[in-house]
């Protein structure tokens, strides 16, 4: 039971990453590799700040701000520098690696014995692992509500139109470059905060903790979409969180089956690849019919 609660807590904390990438990947149609850098950047900034005596809340906020700046740079490279989206993201991600080393001065910093968001009186009274469920829920609810409200404003609709048909958006007077930059900023801000939360939850920041984050984020988005089809926009935002939780439960299952933890990234990639191929597989092998046949009464 404890393991399941822990997986749910992890799913909720990591959901912020999925939500951030949803804005760029699904709404703006922009595969933003920056997140692989922003995630450990958020972690590095938060942990270093806390070790320097900054309050955990402020340190988490710093992580968000620095993520926003990273997103801004990718956005400028793409819109003003005319560098292709994938490459712009990879450039910033690569640059951030060095910056992270500068911030942390070494490849790993522990938060042992320091204050963090998960260490307080209220949370310590909760049953084991419920601290991450509480903090995860708190953050994901706040940001899901914020994004949901924003997307349903006139501004948000222009943002969605930018991703859906940039040429049309421009012809309606929408400043598409500005929208893309802003989307990348908010997205990377969320990813930075997610990095800060995960680092505080784990008790350390590591230079390599960004590896594979884009796969985790995509898995949350795509598992949510594959399981809950035909959703409204608001429901889709919630489905990202559910997808993130299901992904963690899947990983738990895989580990329970005796797989090596070193293989986690390999397993994550395989899970994601299968999820992404499902629509094609469904078509090719007529999966639905085969599955239904299995549960129907025989003639």
């Amino acid at each position, binding site marked *: 039971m404890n393991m399941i609660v822990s997986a749910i807590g992890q799913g909720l904390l990591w959901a912020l990453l999925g939500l951030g990438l949803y804005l760029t990947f699904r709404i703006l149609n922009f595969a933003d590799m920056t997140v692989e850098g922003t995630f450990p950047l958020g972690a590095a900034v938060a942990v270093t700040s806390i070790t320097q005596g900054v309050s955990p809340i402020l340190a988490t906020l710093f992580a968000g701000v620095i993520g926003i700046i990273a997103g801004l740079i990718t956005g400028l490279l793409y819109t003003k520098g005319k560098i292709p989206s994938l490459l712009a993201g990879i450039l910033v991600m690569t640059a951030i690696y060095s910056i992270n080393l500068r911030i942390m001065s070494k490849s790993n910093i522990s938060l042992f014995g320091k204050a963090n968001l998960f260490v307080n009186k209220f949370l310590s009274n909760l049953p084991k692992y419920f601290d991450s469920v509480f903090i995860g829920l708190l953050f994901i609810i706040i940001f899901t509500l914020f994004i949901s409200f924003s997307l349903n404003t006139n501004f948000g609709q222009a943002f969605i139109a930018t991703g859906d048909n940039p040429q049309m958006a421009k012809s309606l007077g929408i*400043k598409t470059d500005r929208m893309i930059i802003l989307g990348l900023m908010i997205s990377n801000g969320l990813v930075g905060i997610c990095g800060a939360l995960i680092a505080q939850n784990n008790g350390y920041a590591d230079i390599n903790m960004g590896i594979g984050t884009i796969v985790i984020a995509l898995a949350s988005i795509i598992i949510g979409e594959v399981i809950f089809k035909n959703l409204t926009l608001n429901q889709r935002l919630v489905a990202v969180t559910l997808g993130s939780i299901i992904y963690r439960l899947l990983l738990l299952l895989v580990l329970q089956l005796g797989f090596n933890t070193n293989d986690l990234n390999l397993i994550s990639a395989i899970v994601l690849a299968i999820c992404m191929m499902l629509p094609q597989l469904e078509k090719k092998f007529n999966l639905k019919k085969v599955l239904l046949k299995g549960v129907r009464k025989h003639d």
Partner: protein
Amino acid sequence: MTNPVLELKEITTKVNQGTNRELTILKNISLKVNKGDYITIIGTNGSGKSTLFNVISGLMQVSVGKIYLNGKDITNLKEENRSKFLSRVFQDPKLGTAPRMTVAENLLLALKRGEKRNFLPRNLKNYFPQFIQLTKSMHNGLENRLNAPTEVLSGGQRQALSFLMAIIKKPDILLLDEHTAALDPKTSATLMNETDNQISRGHLTALMITHKLEDALKFGNYLLILNQGKIKFIFGKEEKKRLTVNELEKFLI
């Protein structure tokens, strides 16, 4: 004397400038479009019809010359900023609408064409009575599909929506770029007639590129023939009446 709505002054457009692939598309074009003018434009492929629209809408910069809108120099104004005054319907139904957004959402986006998009709730439902009335005017069932994403609409419905989006907020100038060319003959004729109705009812100023010579003669109060980047002829309404399709074909050669 009032300014023309649109004035092109000695416009020349070149592509690949400064390279050995340099090509002049529009050559020294001057044109005045007055309020209420409805000009049909014909020309062979490569005559510069779409480039003319690209230049007017700001999608393409001019190499030489000036563009004035209501007397104001807009030559260097970006496409996004020109949208305040002009709207355009493309030939491809897919270009004019956001596929994953619903019909109503697309209409609301267009209703705010050229305006600053504020951070207030969009209140989409409040606009439904207006949208139902507007879409009904197209007589193709669009009013029953306001909540459907535009990607599931038929080509005719989608293009009708593109047209409505272009006129829902009255533009100073409306550009129709062969907007019925991708449709079957019946749907095309219906949309063309409805286009004509809306233009005369709304006293719109419009330029329409067409490949159909019958349409070029039937609609509009001026007919402009482009040839190799130059304006070859402009016919007024009375002259147009006397022209036949066969005669017009000869002008195109």
